[in-house]
């Protein structure tokens, strides 16, 4: 009698857990299936390389892919060194108790929660107007860098902190400077954390729309400089589905390309992280 009751309870909670998991998976699969179903038809080499025609209803997404890549490039080139430096400062040169470190950490947590449209308006005011970069790939990339930084810094910091403090103590006991210890021991050990931050950060960056509308602009021509305006893939999708009647087909295909890009980036980065760790274990 008792065990039957327990079994019933078990059975019920198992069902609830499975249902929740199934719901999440189903939503993702539905979305993915929908995009593949409507988007795969138009996909071709030509679609990936030619410029859009007729406001994007026809033609391809060549210049848009290039703009997206350039925006992401600017974003990462700026965000990685600043992020790495801040993470090193937070993890190695401040303690949890010190006010300075606490201030930076709180600011980062707040920044991470700020809606992207706010970043967009900030970027538009600061990079486009005050610094005079105008609507450009540079402004867009810099705005995205501001957005990605909190994620990048926190995950790198966690990576650095997860390196056992034994290494720091034994390195210090051997008379090694903090910089040498950082370069040879701590940073290599923290690379997986940095890569995870990069995946999350660039995933957020490449899929960003709101922050780019006011900074990198709408222009769908092939960019020739970082100061040109350039349309990112996510903005292209937004524009096609919202403003262009009959643009749904190409919007679907562009969305499919974006999803494949994000999946590819995730895959490559985790593969790199794995390779890196294996290399470190058998390294000379």
């Amino acid at each position, binding site marked *: 009698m008792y065990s039957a009751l327990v079994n019933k309870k078990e059975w019920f909670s198992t069902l609830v857990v499975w249902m929740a998991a199934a719901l999440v998976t189903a939503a993702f699969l539905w979305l993915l299936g929908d995009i593949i179903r409507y988007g795969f038809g138009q996909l071709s080499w030509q679609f990936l390389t030619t410029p859009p025609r007729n406001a994007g209803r026809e033609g391809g997404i060549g210049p848009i892919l290039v703009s997206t890549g350039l925006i992401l490039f600017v974003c990462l080139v700026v965000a990685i060194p600043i992020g790495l430096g801040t993470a090193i400062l937070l993890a190695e040169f401040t303690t949890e108790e010190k006010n300075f470190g606490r201030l930076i950490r709180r600011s980062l947590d707040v920044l991470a929660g700020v809606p992207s449209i706010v970043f967009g308006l900030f970027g538009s005011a600061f990079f486009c107007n005050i610094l005079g970069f105008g609507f450009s790939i540079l402004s867009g990339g810099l705005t995205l860098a501001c957005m990605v930084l909190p994620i990048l810094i926190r995950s790198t910091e966690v990576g650095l902190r997860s390196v056992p403090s034994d290494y720091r103590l034994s390195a210090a*006991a051997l008379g090694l*400077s903090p910089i*040498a210890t950082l370069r040879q021991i701590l940073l290599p050990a923290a690379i997986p954390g940095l890569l995870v931050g990069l995946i999350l950060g660039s995933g957020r960056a490449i899929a960003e729309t709101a922050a780019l509308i006011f900074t990198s602009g709408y222009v769908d021509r092939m960019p020739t400089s970082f100061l040109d305006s350039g349309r990112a893939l996510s903005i292209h999708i937004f524009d096609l589905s919202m403003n262009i009647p009959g643009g749904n087909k190409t919007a679907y295909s562009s969305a499919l390309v974006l999803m494949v890009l994000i999946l590819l980036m995730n895959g490559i980065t985790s593969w790199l992280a794995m390779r890196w760790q294996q290399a470190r*274990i058998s390294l*000379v």
Partner: protein
Amino acid sequence: MAGHEMAAGKDITGMSSQESLSPVHRPSSQQHEASPCCIPRPFIQTEDLNVYYKKNPALEGVSLTLNAGCLTTLVGPSGCGKTSLLMSLNRLTDLIPFCRVTGKIRLGVLDVLSRQTDVIRLRRRVGMIFQKPNPFPLSIFKNLAFPLREHGIKDRGEVARIIEESLRDVGLWDEVKDRLNEPALGLSGGQQQRLCIARAIALNPEALLMDEPCSALDPLSSGIVEDLILKLRGRYTILIVTHNLAQARRIADYAAFFWMEKGSGRMIEYGPALQIFETPKEALTTAYVNGVRG
């Protein structure tokens, strides 16, 4: 041993010859007498040393003289400041937030606690071995080569020579010579601890601080490391913390007994090991070494 004397002759620390140690050998017939290992020559001296964590004293009023080339053991229950004493000698206490060290420590003529002291050079002169073997996540070779290079020994041949010599000194060379490029973390616990000792002595230090170097090892490895420590006695001034009283009796020239009193660690008694373990002056020491307390 011959190999080591070559290493001692080469002046990689840039010390004056007065400061550097000549190997001191212990006359075996006079084991455990008043000055057991040698003519007592003070090398490390502490005067009224106090270590505080925030406001809490961990160690108070320790005045201790360690003789050059001798092996001194620190015994006493956990939490009575032995590790704090060890870490203040090479200023590793600098790394611990809110840790404050007062009093005086002299290493030869060097004022250890002075602001002007170059801690990098100090730590090169005073090596340290920890309880848990902690090789870097690098290859066996790099574990030794990286500190050497950072200390300015860049010549490849020279680096390789010192590495071989150090690994031979700790009896690890024959075990690892064919796999120097394999990860150090793949070694057994005892091998890792010997690698850490080799890493420390590769820098040609004058003193070695050991914090329970055998306690994380199995009995067999522990025995091997103990033999190694005995081999190093005379070449280096060794200060070793151990909870293994039998081991302390076997290897020590001098012993210091620590106990928790009035909320902080204090040194109760210090003297030749034989005296501390056989005929201690203090009742507390007698009780501890006989296993009545602690």
